[in-house]
């Protein structure tokens, strides 16, 4: 049974714009899935449906076979979403306060909140910056803080919405290493990006979205040759293989 599944998922905005249409997607436990597509293809809208932030116009999302609408809090605990702009995710005045936001929402006892915050900060290597203002962090550190905030909720699935946007080379490497570490520790990863050259070598599966529809789904080495048809830059050069598509040396 897939850990996460969408059936016939459709979202129409009040002005009539169809954001996503008839999305059928199955995500298996422990999988590393990359979702690519040009701007406006519906990737972010899909991500926001996967933890119940948006309500579908038609169709449903299932977590472990159960519709997420049955228990939205459980869905949000299990499906962590790291936003494209980490600034919008920051609600604390210090790094530790921000990480504590999620566990406090879950009404965990104070001692447990403190423990989870410590663990999450240590996991992303931000323990030393616990008392700093989040706004004084670098781009890569802010993204790590956003990840720590999600880790504190102990999710099984983590969705990264354009995690490399606005980062310099060391920032991308930092974040990519963190994502791979999370995958290694058993998390299911869904990564939304159009910058395939930075990450595709590590993915188990590549899904392409175009004009709100899921148009290709399969092993990266079989789907990659069709990406240009759908407005995503072909990252492979002559003779190169998918294994070359990473910014990690």
């Amino acid at each position, binding site marked *: 049974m897939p850990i996460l599944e969408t059936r016939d998922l459709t979202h129409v905005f009040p002005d009539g714009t169809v954001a996503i249409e008839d999305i059928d997607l199955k995500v298996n436990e422990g999988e590393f899935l990359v979702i690519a597509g040009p701007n406006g293809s519906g990737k972010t809208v899909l991500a926001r449906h996967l933890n119940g932030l948006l309500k579908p116009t038609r169709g449903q999302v299932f977590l472990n076979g159960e519709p997420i609408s049955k228990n939205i809090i459980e869905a949000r605990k299990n499906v962590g979403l790291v936003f494209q702009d980490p600034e919008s*995710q920051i*609600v604390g*005045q*210090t790094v530790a306060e921000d990480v*504590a936001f999620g566990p406090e929402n879950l*009404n965990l006892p104070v001692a447990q909140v403190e423990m989870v915050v410590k663990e999450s900060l240590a996991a992303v290597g931000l323990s030393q910056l616990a008392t700093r*203002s989040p706004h004084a962090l670098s781009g890569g550190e802010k993204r790590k803080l956003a990840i720590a905030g999600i880790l504190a909720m102990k999710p099984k699935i983590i969705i990264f919405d354009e995690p490399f946007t606005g980062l310099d080379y060391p920032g991308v490497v930092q974040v990519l290493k963190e994502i791979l570490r999370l995958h290694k520790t058993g998390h299911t990863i869904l990564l939304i990006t159009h910058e395939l050259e930075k990450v595709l070598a590590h993915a188990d599966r590549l899904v392409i979205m175009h004009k709100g529809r899921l148009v290709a789904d399969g092993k990266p080495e079989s789907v990659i040759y069709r990406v240009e048809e759908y407005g995503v830059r072909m990252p492979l050069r002559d003779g190169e293989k998918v294994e070359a598509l990473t910014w990690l040396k």
Partner: protein
Amino acid sequence: MAEMTLFHYIHKNTVLHRMDGRLKLACLLLFSLAAGFASEFHDYLVPLSVLFCAILLAKLPFTTLLREMRFFGLIILIVIVVNSFTIPGDPIANSPLAGISQQGVSTGLRFAGRLLIVLLVSMVITGTTPLMKFRDAVEWYLRPVPFVPEARVATMINLTFLLIPVILDSFREMMDAQNSRCVQLRKNPVKRIKFLVFPLIDQTLRRADEIAYAMEARCYSEIRTRTAFKCGKIDWLMLAISLAVFFFVLL
């Protein structure tokens, strides 16, 4: 905004930083009331001396804070000057400036003293209290008040303080972007304001929307973990000092 120190939390490990937020809020209230009731010279001197000691005790960067207070220094000066010239009374003997009255100068200095006390107490409180602690204290005080959703009020306080620097940053960036496109050549101030205000409101609302989504994604709830408050002997001692200052001024 990251470079600003005034009215920002400065992390240090001091007695004042560790102090219980509820008692700290009570001290803020007592000092503000003391400022309001002060009338004689020593009524100002005592709270001001205690506040200077508090700044030293909290290891706040005094010279930096003083530099950043220049703007308020100007306001205090204006208050003294305006009062000196507008309040009628006995003229000051041998004064080179005509129109200054003794009563005017005295009233001006009193207002300035009050302003200074309020400024310093705000500086100490904001410099030593993280927003979450402040928020929790407000929430605790609001709990017994009927029909007031204390958790929601606390979240609103938190978000307001969080959004202010972000909005100011956006404002500065928009100003720069428009200046680089020669907005200064437009002579109509209404149009210039329009170009600035509407995009700023639009961007702020979008950002507020994003923050709301991000909070929901992390299971935002009004039934949250309640802070465990800890009151030590030193905390009560601080409150006792504040009470002593208040009663000294009152009596």
